[in-house]
């Protein structure tokens, strides 16, 4: 059984721990994937874009896509005619009927996507599906740096 002094010390220790945990996490971050890195440069209809992801973050499990990874596409120079839709998928990942699978969305300058990936082939190229406002469609294969680092 704890006496008064022991109990007091225990409570002060617990109080200290409760305060230290948030401070530690605030300083160190939640331990996620870290900084985004450029994995490809894309030229499209006069525009120049960079594709980024967090190489330290392994693909997440996704209920619908199997495996997926967050990616960002930023236009350094916007294209002459903006595309109507851009979709990304890693070659080998399942082709999904979900219209939002790998769909790039956001502002005119910076777009995000939750991209279906293979889960076991970080070097496999990406497939970029492009739809233009005049109805044209095209598909490009894009070579990238490894999408994630295998440990």
């Amino acid at each position, binding site marked *: 059984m704890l006496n008064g002094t022991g109990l007091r010390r225990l409570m002060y220790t617990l109080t200290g721990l*409760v305060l230290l945990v948030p401070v530690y996490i605030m300083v160190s971050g939640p331990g996620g994937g870290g900084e985004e890195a450029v994995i490809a440069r894309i030229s499209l209809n006069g525009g120049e874009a960079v594709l980024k992801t967090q190489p330290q973050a392994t693909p997440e499990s996704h209920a619908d896509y199997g495996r997926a990874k967050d990616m960002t596409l930023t236009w350094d120079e916007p294209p002459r*005619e903006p595309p*109507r839709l851009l979709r990304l998928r890693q070659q080998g990942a399942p082709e999904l009927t979900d219209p939002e699978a790998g769909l790039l969305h956001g502002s005119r300058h*910076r777009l995000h996507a939750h991209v279906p990936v293979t889960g076991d082939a970080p070097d496999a190229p990406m497939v970029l599906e492009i739809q233009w*406002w005049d109805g044209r469609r095209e598909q490009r294969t894009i070579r990238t740096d490894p999408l994630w680092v295998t440990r």
Partner: protein
Amino acid sequence: MASKRTWFTLHGWLAVPVWILFTFICLSGAIAVFSHELTWLTNPDARADNPKELPRRGLGELADGVREQRPELELNWVARLEPYMAVPMNATLADGQSATLYVNPYSGAIQAVNQGLTFKGFMRGLHGWLLMPWEHGYSIGYYLVSGFSILMLGSLVSGLVIYRRFWRAFTRPRLRIGRGSRIFLGDFHRLVGVWSFWFLLVISATGSVYLIQGIVWHTGNEVHAAPDPLPEAGIPTTVEGQPPALMDTATLVENASSVTGTFVPGWIRFPEHALDPVEIRGRGDAPVFDDGSYRVALNPYNGNVVESVTPADMTPLQWAARLADPLHYGTWGGLATKAIWSLFGLVLAGLSLSGFLIWRGRVRAPARQAVRNRRREGQAC
């Protein structure tokens, strides 16, 4: 049946190790309640001044006006705050940076372009998740803070069990001043604990809703599903290869309002891709519910309503989530309820502090007595 002593021990264990953090959360909450008003006081650009006594413009009209004034801006969302506040609009600037515009709801003038965290954003982040980072749909800070709802409920129940005939604190309140700090702190703790039990219940109930909501987000789900994307076949194509003109926002708001009768739009989100509908949220005739309780999704190319949700269509969790903010921050009744909520936030901080001081007094007294006894024994030898 657990003895009073067990309940008393439980009461202490639930509160004492976390009292500093709990006090901090209560104080930050008491300030967060008035974050709009403090912004109004400190930032003249955030005020909705109307010296010419112009009629108030609708959210859609204001958004269309900003697009005309600054065509290089890309509006992301628009919100309605209290009548004395300017309308905040989130936009992407020409250089790709995000900014909040403060727009006068009467003149339609852009009063300021603010980049960085707003005071409200800072206070809500500090109070809600201790400004800890969010990644993969969760923040440890959010779990820490919302987890307090369970501790608070436990403290409330155990406190009422160990306080014999607690209801007498309503009929015969007792606060003895001048009879020593131990008696004063005990009276204060019991008195404010009983008088604020309704507030503790409200805050722990809404906190539990936030906790469940956090778990839902963490598991990759949404409390409210985003509107379905528009079918690709329905998106117009253009000969010149440029995006087609979208419907003006005022017309979209009008179409949304005609669907739900008493609809008052409070938030508009603009499309993030070609298949994305415009989403307009607001409030209707259901009292207390927040500005997200009525949701209408519209096709931005033709103005047709594609989805609408009212509280009657919601699941219990969605319903609770739409009640949580007004009840947690006391915004449901305007300035009067905000003042009451802020005051009781301070009271809870006092409750936590007094509880700690009582506990310290209790464990210190025997320890000091033991030291005195040892000294006496030493002198006797």
